[in-house]
């Protein structure tokens, strides 16, 4: 027979623990750590990333050089640490510009509709036709190599992906009753869009930004690898894969592999994060 105490225990309101997804935590910690490393580069890197030492080229792992040295005798670990700065800043800028532009365009075309929506959608369709890498190469050909041209080109290339997904989400939201209730309350369109519509599509925006970040990082690394982006001797991960490859045949793949692995790990972290964020918010339309 159940005692009163037992019943009380069963009936006591269970404080529901917020479910924490270990993958989201893991990916966030990894990304956060990379950002911290990039910020603290001047203090934590053991060597100057650009000081070459021809007496110590292509060294393996040692106590002095934890990840060895590259064909010019530069410390691989230091270059990875410094390389994190531009390798992360580039995609971050791309995503920042693309999501800002994409969100504004998406909400505006869903809200205004009509001809404006048609024009925006068709322009986005045209942009879809150009792969990011091609657009970046064209930009470099026109404006010269360096960090800026590829970033601008890729920002434009990523905008349609954000716009298309957020536009359909905004269209769905704008026809929901709570938006008409705002209308009827006399809330101006500007406020409805920024204070009501945007927060409701935000999970989707976040997911899309995380997924695009991974993809932008790879594309930007590819641009660097091809020598079209940041120029040597500045360190970026993509460039390190390229400079290290001459040593691969000589039997010293360390530099290329280390930077390659770092790129892969970072991209996977961002993709997992985006994926799990999508699940978490049960985001539709992906």
């Amino acid at each position, binding site marked *: 027979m159940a005692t009163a105490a037992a019943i009380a225990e069963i009936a006591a309101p269970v404080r529901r623990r917020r479910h924490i997804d270990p993958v989201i935590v893991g990916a966030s910690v990894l990304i956060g750590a990379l950002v911290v490393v990039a910020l603290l580069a001047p203090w934590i890197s053991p060597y100057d990333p650009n000081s070459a030492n021809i007496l110590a080229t292509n060294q393996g792992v040692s106590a002095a050089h934890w990840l060895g040295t590259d064909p010019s005798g530069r410390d691989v670990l230091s270059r990875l640490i410094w390389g994190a700065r531009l390798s992360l800043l580039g995609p971050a800028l791309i995503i920042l510009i693309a999501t800002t532009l994409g969100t504004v365009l998406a909400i505006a075309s869903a809200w205004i509709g009509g001809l404006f929506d048609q024009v925006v959608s068709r322009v986005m369709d045209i942009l879809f036709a150009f792969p990011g890498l091609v657009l970046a190469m064209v930009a470099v050909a026109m404006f010269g190599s360096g960090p800026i041209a590829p970033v601008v080109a890729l920002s434009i290339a990523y905008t349609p992906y954000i716009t298309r997904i957020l536009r359909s989400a905004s269209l769905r939201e704008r026809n929901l009753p*709570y938006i008409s209730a705002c*209308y009827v309350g*006399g809330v101006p369109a500007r406020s409805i869009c920024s204070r009501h519509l945007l927060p409701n599509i935000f999970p989707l925006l976040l997911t899309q930004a995380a997924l695009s970040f991974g993809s932008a990082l790879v594309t930007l690394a590819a641009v660097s690898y091809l020598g079209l982006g940041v120029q040597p001797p500045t360190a970026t991960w993509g460039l390190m894969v390229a400079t290290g490859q001459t040593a691969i045949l000589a039997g010293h793949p360390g530099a290329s592999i280390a930077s390659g692995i770092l790129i892969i790990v970072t991209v996977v972290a961002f993709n997992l994060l985006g994926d799990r964020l999508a699940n978490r918010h049960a985001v539709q339309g992906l």
Partner: protein
Amino acid sequence: MTLLEIHRLSLDLEVDGELRRIIHDVTLELDDGEAVGLVGESGAGKSMTSRAVIRLLPRGARLGGEVEFDGRSVPAMDARALRAYRSRDVAMIFQDARSHINPVRTIGAFLTEALVERGERKADAVTVVSELLETVGIHDVPHRLRQYPHELSGGMLQRVMIAAALAIRPRLLLADEPTTALDVTTQAEVMAHLDRQRRGRGLAMLFVTHDLELAAAVCDRIAVIYAGCLVEECPASTVHDRVLHPYTAGLLASRPSATRRAARLAAIPGRPQAAYEIAPGCPFVARCPYVVDLCRTTRPPLRLIGASRVACHRAEELAGQLSVGRFSGEERARA
């Protein structure tokens, strides 16, 4: 003083590229502080009538006739005037509070938005809405203001909605079936709050419902709408004793009674018709037990009979004879 005047309102919506008539002809007046119940079956056009008053219509809707609020034409308002009208003069209480409140913002943000939007200080707005929440029977207000819509029950949310409508100190309330989505006990409670607040503040109200009883209890006058046409308008006090339109009589006959025993609940024969389906004659012709030839050919105009207005050719003749029994189960079985 007349606050709201709806004159020969008609409404067409575009459905699959063709225009479909939703409202044929609705003429209605509301005085300051007066409550009018707009009663009808689903699809009769009652919600659309209330939405036309605040110009919340689907895209491509075509409005005919005139809606005047305090002497100003609502269909003719420009965007700025319309926003001012919506944010100061009228407030709407929707049926489904849950879907009409932004799910990702707090109750406090929802309630204060309209006030802050028109330039009041945030702190003042919070004071105003806190008091309002108290008066509609919500306790622990500071806590509630921080909660999100999913944390509140349906009845609670509907009271929040009522508070939001009252917060802007409107002159006219549009209540579109405010209690239909709630369970019966909550319904009574919410309705009592709404009625008390409305009377206390002397607000006019257009109360849309399919519940004739409820409308008669909280309103001064009742307007019955069928297939997009206003068929009868009468003082709420006479609705049980002296109805003039056969449709109203039918509605009254179809409600269950606590005192009368009947083997079968009476129903109006046939099915409710949509506004675009009706022929040129009287809209109720297909279901009316009192139909004569004239009804099939000519649409009856609204005529003043006593304190009521009614659109029926035989209103005088049938006055006092419209029996509930004509619609009851036994009667039809015999026929």
